[in-house]
């Protein structure tokens, strides 16, 4: 089990944003992506998760092994916390939601409709969803937004447990997560001033 990316180029709105990116994460490894706003982290993560096509390069991962989580975490406001998790557990074929509830201290909120949670509580629910996917590779986009210190610790705990069991994590963030992990700054991979490529692309681009 590993996640490999080879000379990957990704594009947003038809324009290359990152180019020639390569890295490999082995089982039990965690990679943190950094880079200024607008450099293309979100685009990269969506491409790796298979939500959008790569412009160039290859992504090497076992099929159906990636769980993606971003700001919009697919939570239904009118369903309770428990129902939300149970649904995703069923979709991914893992039935037991108790560990997920436990890892993010959601038991006291389990029967509350998700719409009546605060920003941080909602985020915890979104992260708990990762646990019920049972997927080995986690691809996370700014996972700790609006979390307080305790919740960030819960998150770090969940990541550690995941890595210890042979999982892989790829995280884009601007703030310190309290994880010791490799850090990759994507800034050097910013797509070249694309004007140079112009003639080769003949016509449009």
């Amino acid at each position, binding site marked *: 089990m590993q996640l490999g990316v080879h000379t990957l180029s990704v594009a947003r709105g038809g324009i290359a944003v990152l180019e020639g990116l390569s890295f490999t994460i082995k089982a039990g490894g965690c990679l943190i992506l950094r880079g200024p706003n607008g450099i293309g982290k979100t685009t990269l993560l969506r491409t790796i998760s298979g939500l959008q096509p790569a412009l160039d390069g290859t992504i090497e991962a076992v099929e159906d092994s*990636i769980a993606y989580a*971003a700001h*919009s*975490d697919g939570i239904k*406001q*009118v369903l309770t916390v428990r129902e939300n998790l149970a*649904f995703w557990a069923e979709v991914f074929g893992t039935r037991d939601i108790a560990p997920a509830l436990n890892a993010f201290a959601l038991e006291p909120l389990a029967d509350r409709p998700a719409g009546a949670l605060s920003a941080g509580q909602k985020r915890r629910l979104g992260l708990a969803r990762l646990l019920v996917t049972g997927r080995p590779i986690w691809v996370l986009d700014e996972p700790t937004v609006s979390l307080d210190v305790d919740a960030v610790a819960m998150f770090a705990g969940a990541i550690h447990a995941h890595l210890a069991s042979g999982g892989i994590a790829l995280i884009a963030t601007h703030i310190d997560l309290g994880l010791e992990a490799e850090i990759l700054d994507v800034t050097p991979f910013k797509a070249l001033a694309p004007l140079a490529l112009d003639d080769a692309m003949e016509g449009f681009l």
Partner: protein
Amino acid sequence: MKALLIRDLQLAMRAGGGFGLGLAFFLIVTALVPFGVGPQSALLSTIAPGILWLGALLACLLSLDRILALDWEDGTLDLLACAPLPMEATVSIKAFAHWLTTGLPLVIAAPLFGLLLNLPSAGYIPLVLSLLLGTPALSVIGTFGAALTVGIKRGGLLLSLLVLPLYVPTLIYGAEAARRGAEGLSSTTPLMMLAGITFGTIALLPFASAAVLRVNIR
């Protein structure tokens, strides 16, 4: 797959979910028609089958943007795209859930509304039959339209514009069956055509919807 269906039905039942609202809309349209065209009962009973079909179609139409847009907004579709469920299955289930919450109640309630418009008594069975055969096609075609416009904020009006022309064959055969029935003629041919359209769309359109949805997600 079952989980998705159950969740969709659950959501439809919860507050603001819209179960039964389609029915209420149908009722109101039916009730407004006499205000619009005047209360003469002979005229009403002539146009009754057509109006009932139109009302069903509009009620369907109005609920289409719920099929996918909510799931799009909160990111559920992105996550479902990563899940071990082919997109074709997802859209089929969503169309089925839409039919269960909108089409089926209409089929069941249509005879009642027929009373309001003086539908001739011979017309009830063909009306219900034609709705039963036709409304699934409306849901499936509507899901295709919803998938096309899912990325567009409040694209409801565009959705209607795209979907209504696609509804034409279904409406023609459906209303024709109901009308012939009401006039005491045989409505076998239009019902056969209706069944053909429904099965055709159920078999083929989900592929188009899934393709379109994949494009929209990326």
